[in-house]
């Protein structure tokens, strides 16, 4: 029993000793003090905190390599100017002169190291003239104007497959828009709108899965799908129109614009078109205004506007 209590007493006093000796060092480190062995005094120091993307880079301080790799903290730095260099094989080095202040942290935590040879990967397996990325479904659509065919793959270029033929436009389309039900893709240049059926085979296209609507009247500025995935909202340089997704569809004027090339935004969630146009005020001057045109079914029954001709079969959406 005696020896056990003696061991315990030794352990207790050892613990107290470790606490008394260790605490000043831990606290001085935490508070940012550096023990200067020459002056035997604690001097307030600063810190450089380094983070790189990617991590694991070598660090140089005033030309001297440090043992640690990023992310890391260089502590106990006396206030002053320091040259920091970060190196990682196959990446461009990063270098900067930084000032370290007493009791402060200099954070260098947004360093991106760019690869010497960028990580470029070829995705297409066929020739292509243009492409479109469907971010929601994480698919790439490749348009090959040589064989008028659309190919698709995932974002890594894998799962590459033939999709559907399409009608090419001249000049090539500048924009692609997927209908909300994901069944149709439209694309357009200044005077043509192409529509391709991705999944469902339409009944009135004689076996084809695509058609082109020519639009020689004005320059097309933008085209949007209505949320019903059947009507198209077309904004040209002079007017805002609506038309159905079928060959030979006739566009109906909704608004005739006073201003050329109006700015437009279409909110498909509420089927609302926001656009700018000049309007003559009472003082006789023209002012630029922002307008809101609601196109949802409750406010503006599109079928009524478009007046389907008697006996005409409505294409399948």
């Amino acid at each position, binding site marked *: 029993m005696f020896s*056990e209590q003696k061991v315990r007493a030794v352990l207790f006093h050892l613990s107290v000793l470790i606490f008394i000796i260790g605490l000043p060092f*831990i*606290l001085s480190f935490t*508070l940012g003090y550096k023990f200067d062995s020459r002056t035997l005094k604690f001097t307030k120091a*600063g*810190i450089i905190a380094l983070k790189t993307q990617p991590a694991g880079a070598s660090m140089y301080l005033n030309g001297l390599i440090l043992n640690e790799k990023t992310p890391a903290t260089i502590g106990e730095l006396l206030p002053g100017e320091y040259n920091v260099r970060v190196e990682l094989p196959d990446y461009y080095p990063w270098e900067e002169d930084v000032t370290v202040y007493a*009791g*402060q942290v200099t954070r260098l935590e947004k360093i991106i190291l760019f690869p010497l040879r960028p990580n470029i990967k070829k995705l297409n397996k066929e020739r292509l003239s243009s492409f479109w990325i469907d971010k929601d479904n994480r698919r790439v659509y490749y348009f090959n104007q040589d064989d008028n065919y659309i190919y698709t793959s995932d974002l890594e270029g894998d799962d590459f497959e033939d999709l559907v033929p399409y009608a090419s436009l001249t000049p090539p389309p500048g924009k692609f828009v997927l209908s909300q039900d994901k069944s149709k893709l439209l694309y357009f240049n200044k005077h043509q709108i192409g529509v391709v059926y991705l999944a469902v085979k339409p009944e009135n296209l004689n076996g084809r899965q695509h058609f082109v609507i020519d639009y020689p009247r004005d320059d097309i500025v933008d085209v949007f799908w209505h949320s019903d995935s059947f009507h198209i909202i077309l904004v040209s340089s002079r007017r805002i129109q609506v038309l159905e997704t079928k060959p030979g569809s006739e566009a109906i004027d909704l608004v005739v614009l006073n201003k050329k090339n109006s700015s437009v935004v279409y909110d498909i969630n509420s089927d609302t078109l926001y656009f700018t146009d000049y309007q003559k005020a009472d003082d006789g001057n023209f002012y630029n205004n922002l307008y809101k045109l609601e196109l949802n079914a409750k406010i503006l029954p599109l079928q009524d506007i478009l007046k389907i001709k008697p006996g005409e079969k409505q294409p399948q959406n």
Partner: protein
Amino acid sequence: MKNNRRIKRLLEITPGAISWGIILFLIILAAVRPVLAAVFVIAFDFYWIIRTLYLTTLLVMAHQKLARQKNTDWLRLCKELNNGRGWLNLCHLVIFPVYKEGVEILRPSLEALKMSNYPKDRIVVVMAYEERNPKAKIIAAALEAEFKGEFFGYLSTFHPDNIQGESRTKGANATWAAKRAKEFISKNNILYENTIVSCFDADTCVDKEYFGCLAYHFLTTPNPHQASYQPIPVYNNNIWHAPSFARLVEISSSFCEMIESVRLEKFVTFSSHSMSFKTLIDIDYWPVDMISDDSVVYWKAFLYHKGQYRVVPLYITVSMDVAYSSTILKTVAMQYRQKRRWAWGVENFPFLMLGFLDNSGVPFLKKIRRSYHLLESHITWAVWAVIMTVIAPLPILLGGAYFAQMSTVGYNLPRITGTLLHFTLIASLVWIVLSRLTLPPRPADVKWSRNIVMMLEWVLVPFIVLILGSTPALDAQTRLALAKYMNFQVTEKTRKF
């Protein structure tokens, strides 16, 4: 009298006021002087790690001693003693205070007594029931039919309800039973000074060598009437069936008691323990109106013997049940209530201080040391987990953007505390190994895979610290400070067969 009541209230308020004072002071400090608060947090963390490593070493020492003495034939050692205090003169009085526990809990406790490597004609068993339990008579009859002839004496006592001056506590029931046993002991011409009384929780299953070990220590300890005898409580009865959360909490409790067994100057009786029956009579039995009867009885004897009273550790186990319920939430709530009841041991502080003030004859330095130890242990219990989990991040959260982002202290604080706390992993590994070594054999109905669960469950420790670390102690101290006195709540015991 009125003055005495005021002093008592003041002493009741003291622990809670100090604990809350420390917590509130640190919160304000974190907002006003975050650097000072950070310094305090780091100093405390460092202190806590050293303390944890120190206590873990004591735990290893206690465990080694327990392992060394595990297979000792204590009865043979008793027989070999030739000191004039023969073991044959000794009588063991074993009291089981019972409230709601049924036959399924009590039978294994009595079976364990029956299986003891000690002559049963030297053992008197008292099953102390509460009269207010309507099933008490039925349970008593069933057990009497089974065990009455097995021991020298077997008594069933029924503690009446609403006795003047009593609260509904375990101590009141045990005291009633001890008084009935005293009549039995007198009638059989057994000397009180030759009687050792053991007061066991109802689910306590003793090791088969317990009474031999107890007798040996009683016979070899100088002034045996000025000592209590404390076995190591383990919760092995249902440990394989208990859920992880409850199992870890009880293993930790067991380990704490093992550590205390090495710190003799602070050692106080806890849960199931034994002492001289003569001393018990001299100090007028257990307290009848306090919840923490197991520790107050020690302080009563300590004051009675003017500070010349101690606890002798017995490196032998008594096994109890892990407290758990049907759902995890109920188990957490049950464990919380049990820990709060243990933390209610803070009521010992006013009791001891009033005893000291009452011209106790305890030496002054001993008074200071024991009251400091008692107060310090309860205050530390109430604040340590709060400091480590709630206060530690406050300098960063309340200290402002400059402190958190730009100052070296704000930058270093989470890194230093994180690094320091990694050292507690060393202690955790030791605890995991020791927990494996103290486990009873796996029952046949438990799958082998439970071994893996029991290793991995230690990741729950931070959550347990958060829930049961300091909160029950803070709760108990606040209640005592506000004079919202607790009633004794029996912990529900569940055992699967």
